[in-house]
């Protein structure tokens, strides 16, 4: 009887997927589907939060008032995205606090791109243009992902990401219209961020352990390699338009495929950065742990005050 029930529930779940009906928090779902979503959404939320650090690094040094305001607004959006995504994740029965602790201990991951340093102002351009650009490639299809709260969060997030991408590209355009120093700064930023940006799409399809199941569940809509190709195809003309050179000698338009061919990613570097050995992994985690530890008394105070207020109300 019990087994029969389970089979019915699973059949109903699969039928919903087939008909593109969203799965909602109270619906039955397979454990593995739930776990996959928790992993993916939390990873995404952590990326937003850790992603505030490399850009936060330049807010106090932004070159003019307009850029300072735009960068502040952008980083604030990212905090908002993190908050929004943690809420979506919590609908799956996993707490924000536990999830953050998992990131601090290295059990949960965030996007490897944020383990690279932001060394010059041009990096704010490169990060906006390439990193947010790659994020959009990943995220736009997620607006149609099968889990309702995640899909709805992504609709809102994508609107803001698209603004972020344009502001980054606009920084690059301005630099490329400027002095030789500014042009060199822009090219240097592209040189450093191009390959890490390509790595943002994750391992190649042949190596990806999660892709097929996620596609069957309609969590993911495209494979890593498909998304990476879309990103290359979109970014190359943008670089050419403003006179930047993509740092890849193997990059070539392939008439037959209708796509750009590009060189092999350094997968050893990818592996090292993902497993904690990137240039800024330790710093990023240390900054987040410090914020948590130093904020402990603030959170405790807020809770103690709320308790007192509740007690007063009750008496």
């Amino acid at each position, binding site marked *: 009887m019990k087994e029969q029930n389970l089979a019915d529930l699973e059949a109903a779940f699969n039928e919903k997927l087939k008909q593109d009906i969203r799965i909602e928090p109270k619906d039955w779902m397979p454990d593995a589907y739930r776990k996959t979503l928790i992993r993916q959404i939390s990873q995404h939320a952590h990326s937003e*939060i850790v992603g*505030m650090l490399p850009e*936060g690094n330049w807010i106090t*040094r932004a*070159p003019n008032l307009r850029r300072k305001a735009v960068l502040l607004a952008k980083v*604030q959006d990212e905090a908002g995205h993190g908050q929004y995504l943690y809420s979506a994740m919590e609908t799956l029965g996993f707490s924000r606090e536990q999830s953050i602790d998992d990131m601090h201990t290295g059990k949960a991951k965030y996007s490897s791109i944020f383990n690279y340093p932001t060394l010059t102002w041009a990096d704010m351009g490169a990060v906006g243009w390439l990193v947010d650009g790659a994020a959009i490639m990943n995220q736009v299809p997620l607006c149609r992902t099968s889990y309702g709260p995640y899909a709805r969060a992504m609709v809102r997030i994508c609107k803001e990401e698209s603004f972020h991408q344009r502001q980054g590209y606009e920084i690059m355009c301005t630099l490329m219209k*400027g002095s030789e120093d500014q042009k060199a700064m822009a090219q240097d930023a592209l040189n450093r961020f191009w390959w890490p940006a390509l790595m943002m799409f994750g391992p190649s399809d042949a190596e990806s352990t999660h892709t097929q199941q996620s596609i069957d569940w309609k969590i993911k809509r495209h494979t890593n390699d498909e998304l990476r190709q879309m990103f290359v195809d979109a970014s190359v003309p943008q670089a050419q338009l403003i006179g930047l050179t993509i740092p890849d000698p193997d990059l070539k338009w392939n008439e037959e495929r209708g796509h750009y061919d590009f060189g092999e990613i350094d997968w050893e570097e990818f592996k090292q950065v993902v497993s904690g050995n990137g240039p800024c992994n330790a710093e990023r985690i240390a900054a987040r742990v410090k914020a948590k530890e130093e904020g402990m008394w603030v959170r405790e105070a807020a809770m103690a005050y709320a308790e007192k207020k509740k007690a007063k109300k009750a008496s």
Partner: protein
Amino acid sequence: MKNNLFTYTLRIADDSLILGQRLSEWCGHGPIIEEDIALTNIALDLIGQATSLLEYAAVAENKGRSADDLAFLRFENQYFNTQLVEQKNGDFAVTIVRQWIFDTFRLPFYEALQHSSDKQLAAIAEKSLKETKYHWKHSSEWIIRMGDGTEESNKRVNDALILLWKFSDELFYMDDVDKELISQGIAVDLETLRPAFNERIHYVLQQATLQLPDSKWKLSGGRQGRHTEHFGHLIAEMQYMQRAYPNMEW
């Protein structure tokens, strides 16, 4: 000839600019995500206010300098912000106490300035007042939570008050610039704001179970361009790009 309107506007602008700069140092390091969002948002409002005010100061000066020139290319002793706003962030209690003292002053200040005979200042004040109401609510609520929270939070917020209260009086600093402009209906007579300021301070402190420090000693100098030691570091960081790459578009 002295340009009173320029100096007056610049003083208000510099308070917003420098506090906005300080607050933006928090970005990504707040005690909870919600506070990262709130502090960044307040920083953004202040940078926005500073931009409007500096644009107007540039017009009032009429020497071809832009708002960005004023923000990024003055020497240390040419900034006229109060010493309060340049104080280091410290812990969350220091940041919030600094903000709260400032917001409690800014609220009645903008309320009064929106009736200025100078239309531009009045318009900036009206817009900024809306933002400042939120800032004040946010900082006051935290003063109360920290004061009436745990033993540790009470101690920290109390220490912050002791550290910062001595800078509060400078917010009411006035000289001939103010007097001249008050007579034209442009500037706010800051003495008239004291009752509203004190009332708000005591109202919040009472709920927070806190008291003002005993010491009556006050520090000032910012309005004449005399700053504290950390100020040089703040502007060195803020001006880095404009100093390293002069005369470029960004």
